[in-house]
């Protein structure tokens, strides 16, 4: 199991966590296959970039595949993700086809954004539940908090998961988003991918702390630290985070320790990274180590591996050919769709009686119950932030207890 955060600092080698929760061979092979698929998709794109077929930037998640794959694999179809540029693996697990990733990078008309944006900047509200990122770091955290809040309001009991790098934890949006998420007890999983480099700046020059997960404590939410190169550890920790979120105990911060094995993007040769550091982490490659583990355990045979590779390569070939033969968008597309005309693509999916949130229901008194006289005793609000509707039920009967008690994700009172 993952180790819950403690106040002490951690020696990294001691953080290597081992799965204790049962994981089936099928799941193991799935995790392996998705990591391999991610790597081959990205290797293919590196070649396309060098041939100038990818017209813009290309970012690599080499060495970080276990994080995207292991976290997303713990989610259900109804849950939501919002990828960053190094989360191609999460998109693939969620059900995005490689062709969408290829066409997106190649700016083709067949891409999910029709060529209007590149990289992992695309989403799917209706089927896959993916929110598109923007380039500004941290902004997804409040947005995914809102997704979680809306999911709770509609009674869907969904989890919203997004990632942020070590660099992105220094943004204002990170703070505002995580604070709101914690205050709302939103079912948000925030994965901090600590790959130790913010463009060219090492993490030690960004923050004066060793474990970025330590920050969670200040927001009043739980955190885990996990070996980001161990896909089963990531998966198991994510499963636990999902369980806690569904039980109303979100948000959960999860710091995954890893290493960025390429420059910030293709143009960056990363000469500022010590060679020994690359060598150390090359030995900890998430796919190589997992392949050895599964082979030693007899789960992955040579025949099985060949099957998996053949399956991946067939998809890659087909999708790459599709992308390369796809047209660029017509120029006039640039002027289209500034505003949305017509009905919304997604209507609210109510999973609770609408009557619970529609009048007549006016038992709420417009007063705060602050508890005591503000003596700053332990146990006051600073220790136990509560979501807006739960505060009505939890802190002195200001709201409709009957309605609140039905809520599947109601936070438990007095949680430690």
């Amino acid at each position, binding site marked *: 199991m993952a180790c819950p955060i403690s106040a002490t600092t951690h020696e990294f080698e001691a953080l290597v966590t081992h799965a204790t929760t049962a994981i089936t061979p099928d799941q193991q092979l799935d995790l392996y296959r998705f990591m391999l698929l991610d790597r081959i998709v990205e290797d293919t794109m590196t070649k396309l970039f060098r041939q100038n077929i990818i017209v813009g930037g290309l970012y690599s998640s080499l060495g970080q595949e276990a994080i995207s794959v292991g976290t997303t694999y713990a989610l259900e179809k109804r849950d939501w993700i919002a990828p960053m540029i190094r989360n191609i693996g999460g998109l693939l697990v969620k059900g995005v086809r490689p062709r969408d990733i290829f066409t997106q990078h190649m700016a083709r008309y067949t891409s999910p954004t029709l060529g209007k944006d590149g990289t992992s900047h695309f989403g799917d509200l209706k089927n896959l539940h993916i929110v598109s990122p923007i380039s500004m770091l941290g902004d997804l955290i409040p947005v995914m908090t*809102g997704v979680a809040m*809306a999911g709770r309001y509609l009674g869907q009991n969904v989890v919203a998961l997004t990632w942020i790098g070590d660099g992105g934890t220094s943004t*204002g949006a990170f703070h505002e988003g995580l604070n709101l998420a914690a205050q709302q007890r939103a079912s948000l999983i925030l994965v901090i991918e600590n790959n130790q480099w913010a463009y060219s700046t090492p993490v030690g020059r960004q923050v004066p702390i060793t474990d970025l997960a330590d920050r969670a404590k200040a927001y009043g939410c739980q955190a885990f630290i996990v070996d980001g190169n161990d896909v089963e550890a990531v998966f198991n920790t994510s499963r636990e985070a999902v369980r806690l979120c569904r039980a109303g105990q979100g948000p959960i911060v999860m710091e995954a320790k890893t290493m960025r094995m390429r420059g910030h993007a293709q143009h960056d040769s990363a000469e500022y990274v010590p060679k020994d550091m690359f060598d150390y982490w090359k030995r900890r490659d998430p796919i190589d180590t997992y392949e050895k583990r599964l082979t030693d355990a007899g789960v992955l045979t040579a025949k099985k591996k060949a099957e998996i590779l053949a399956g991946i390569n067939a998809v890659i070939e087909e999708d790459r050919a599709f992308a390369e033969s796809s047209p660029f968008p017509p120029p006039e597309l640039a002027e289209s769709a500034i505003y949305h005309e017509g009905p919304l693509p997604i209507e609210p999916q109510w999973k609770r009686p609408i009557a619970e949130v529609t009048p007549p229901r006016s038992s*709420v008194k*417009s007063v705060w119950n602050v508890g005591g006289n503000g003596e700053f005793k332990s146990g006051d609000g600073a220790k136990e932030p509560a979501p807006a509707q739960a505060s009505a039920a939890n802190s002195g009967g200001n709201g409709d207890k009957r309605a609140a008690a039905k809520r599947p994700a109601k936070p438990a009172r007095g949680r430690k």
Partner: protein
Amino acid sequence: MAQTTLLEGIRQALFEEMERDPAVVCIGEDIGVYGGAFKVTAGLLERFGWERVIDTPISETAIIGAACGMSYLGLRPVCELQFVDFIACCFNQLTNFVAKSFYLWGAPVPMVVRAPSGGGVHGGPFHSQNPEMYFAHTPGLKVVYPSTPYDAKGLMKSAIRDNNPVLFFEHKALYRRIKDEIPAGDYTVPIGKAAVRREGRDLTIVSYAALAHTCMDAAAELAKEGIEAEVLDLRTIQPLDKDSILASLKKTNRLLIVHEDTRFGGVAGEIAAIVFEKAFDDLDAPVRRVTSLDTPVPYSPPLEERFLPQLKDVVVAARELARY
């Protein structure tokens, strides 16, 4: 028909839309128990409960971001910024995330951002501004700025029902100053349509928000001198009702534009450019502008008075234009 303030018109719209559609929720600072800095949301909490009237920490970026996320699941959040000046704190979320969402990846963001705005109440440099053009300049956002209680209510309903992000400016000097007869029952005012407030043949005065009333006063004074000014209230800045401006100009052949925003890059400059491009032959005189100064909004009353366009400034400019 009851006499209603602009503030009450907005409040009624919020109540009625929340009654009508459970997807409508309100989110902002001090909007629940306290009822909002200007009491626009007073009573909403008692009526609709904690889940639909959400008090937040002081985090404008989180408010806009969370509302955007909520809209992706089909909700229609109405955000309140305590003063529009604080919109600078969430500029990135609005202009990069919310505004570009539909164009880039086809995800509409049906949300409203309400914000008390404007000067003349001695709010000082950070509680008096008119930053509408930052957002009118950003493709993907709609910008509404009503001047009457009737319009405020009808436009708020349109904004909530719109499937795009709408910035709804509420001039705080008008909140309780202006009263209108508002009909009982549901009605909307379309976004993107200007209103002719007074017909005239000698010149067109285009304005909006608080200064639309100043322009009406100016037109009354000018009428005493035999100058008949047509007053056009834009009501919406983006999308701009170019057709109504051009139609009025065709009739009067003279154009004065009046706004409380600063001059450089203001909506007046944009309208002037449109007129030069599309209706140069209709002009009998150069387009004139009366705007605030290109300075921050100063605090002391004589300074703020100098900063803001005054009735006499409008009258003088209109008179000169009519006699050009």
